[in-house]
């Protein structure tokens, strides 16, 4: 059974006179795992809560399978939600937490018991069914919240930063479990996070939000390879993309991006830019696209002076300067380098992202 398609049309949210969402248009295909990602305060939770029916819609409409639903109560929308703080019922034990929705629906006792056992098995809670939430660890509570949502058998699954209260190790583990679960339980899932690693690993489709607007949507790969604007480029990927101001210059029929301390050759295909008179650009390069190569040719190399080296295992992250701009690069930890040394890094043409300096749109 295909799970429903959710469509947001020009969704606007105002608190009093302050508009926090400025018209969200988004279609979430059935059976898709959509991740809303963006910095704190960008309106992800608000969007999710409007879909859930916990916030009113100021303008625009939400459609589920082409049926407008923004006037419906949460309980009429056939969805389940996992909250950031888990939102368990403190006075009920785990089994009663999980079965609350089913008990409200007055399902037969045997069926409820069967369902509780089933979902408890899925999330690994079978031993803890009689505990109260207060007697559980953070990770276990998180599982209860997940089990409670699963037990409802609804067609839409909403998550609001469900992993953000867990420590790094547990978060990684739960993330993997979640990925596994989302393959097993085919539902339309919408997941909110500010953690781009979570977004990249879990999503079928990522929606990047910023300041109450959608910046770009697409598969993780599309967004990573072809960011629409400087914000998306800088938000996805870790360590983040380097940005260097540059000017387009044409010499001997070749196009170059010239900055304070570099002059990089651009591919032929970029020549149209000069014609359109957009000479002031920002050059974006991911740290992973800069390769240590002392034999690289001038026209596609940066000379970077290492000022800080952060050892993080097999890779080290180096903070360097290029002229007076900071640039981050990654390097195998065994490479012998000294602080203060100037190294040469080569960049491939595919690794060069160009942005308009005023509009910040990709060129």
């Amino acid at each position: 059974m295909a799970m429903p398609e959710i469509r947001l049309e020009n969704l606007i949210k105002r608190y009093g006179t302050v508009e926090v969402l400025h018209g969200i248009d988004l279609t979430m295909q059935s059976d898709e795992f959509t991740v809303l990602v963006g910095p704190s305060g960008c309106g992800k939770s608000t969007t999710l809560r409007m879909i859930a029916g916990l916030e009113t819609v100021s303008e625009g409409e939400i459609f589920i399978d082409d049926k407008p639903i923004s006037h419906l109560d949460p309980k009429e929308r056939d969805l389940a939600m996992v909250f950031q703080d888990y939102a368990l019922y403190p006075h009920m034990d785990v089994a009663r937490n999980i079965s609350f929705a089913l008990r409200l629906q007055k399902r037969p006792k045997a069926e409820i018991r069967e369902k509780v056992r089933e979902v408890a098995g899925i999330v690994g809670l079978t031993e803890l069914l009689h505990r109260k939430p207060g007697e559980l660890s953070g990770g276990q509570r998180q599982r209860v919240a997940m089990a409670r949502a699963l037990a409802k058998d609804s067609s839409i699954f909403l998550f609001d930063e469900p992993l953000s209260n867990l420590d790094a190790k547990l978060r990684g583990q739960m993330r993997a479990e979640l990925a596994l679960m989302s393959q097993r339980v085919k539902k339309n899932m919408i997941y909110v996070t500010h953690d781009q690693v979570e977004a990249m690993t879990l999503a079928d489709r990522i929606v990047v939000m910023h300041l109450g607007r959608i910046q770009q949507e697409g598969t993780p790969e599309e967004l990573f390879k072809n960011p629409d604007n400087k914000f998306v480029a800088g938000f996805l990927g870790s360590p983040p993309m380097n940005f260097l101001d540059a000017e387009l210059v044409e010499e001997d029929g070749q196009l170059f991006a010239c900055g304070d301390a570099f002059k990089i050759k651009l591919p032929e295909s970029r020549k149209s830019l000069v014609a359109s008179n957009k000479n002031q650009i920002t050059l974006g390069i991911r740290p992973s696209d800069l390769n240590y190569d002392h034999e690289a040719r001038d026209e596609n190399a940066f000379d970077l002076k290492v000022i800080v080296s952060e050892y993080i295992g097999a890779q080290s992250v180096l903070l360097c300067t290029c002229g007076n701009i900071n640039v981050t690069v990654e390097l195998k930890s065994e490479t012998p380098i000294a602080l203060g040394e100037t190294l040469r890094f080569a960049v491939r043409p595919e690794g060069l992202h160009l942005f308009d300096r005023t509009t910040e749109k990709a060129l």
Partner: protein
Amino acid sequence: MIRQSLNRLSPYMFIAPGAIIMAIALLYPLGYMVYGSFRDWDPSQNISETEFIAFKNYITLFYDPAFRESLSVTLTFAFTVVVAELFIGVGLALLLDRNIRGMSVLRTLFILPMMIAPVVVGLMWRYMYHPTIGTFNRTLKSMGLEGVDWLGQNALLSVVIADIWQWTPFIFILALAALQSLPRSALEASRIDGATNWQQIWHIKLPLMMPVLIVTALLRLIDAFKVLEVILVMTEGGPGLSTEIIALRISRTATEFRELGTAAAMSNYLLILLMLLTCAMFVFTKIQEVRAARAARQYQEEG
């Protein structure tokens, strides 16, 4: 050796001043009252001159129909007002727990009755209940209805109403505070789980408020057993013994009948009653906890 035992004793030494003050301030008056209740004691006598009569005061009281009547009036009064106040107070809190403009003003207005001195409350209600010029009967008559004999035949009901008017706000503000400290997201989760407003109240809000409500009810109950001024001003215990609650009887026994020993014995009966109540409440909650735990385990074994 000595040093060790000194070390062990030092915490008690620090507690000692507090403990002594507690003992004097709390236990001495109590002890004095208990001691006095075993004696035939007239206010003109020094307590050391009085005669020891063992349990005679208690036994006389036990068979005294007036005291029994007074006890039953007190019980009726206390339980009626507390139950009614709980219903109204919690109901209002559930109703007003929302963000509408002007709500904070309304909430402040609601707690005004509590701030009025009991004597004034008594006087106010006595005038409103007045058979001919009182507010209630005038209103009834202007609507063409019969007046009600408020402080006569219906005296107990009338004082109950006055007490409800004065003390419902107490339960209201505590219930409201409890409501507003409930975890927001759990309530939202219950909406998504499909709970209607009633189901939310019944399955989430009330159970989570219960600890606060139990303590509040207990406080009100203890207070209601000792109520004095309002009833004194309104009815002076009459007509007959119909509104003579225990506190009033104690005060009259001590001042009018000049039997301090009996009055002390009466106070002790009241004290025992209240302690029994508190214990019962405590045991009740404990039993419920144990039962819930057992039910959960059973569920687990069946499942």
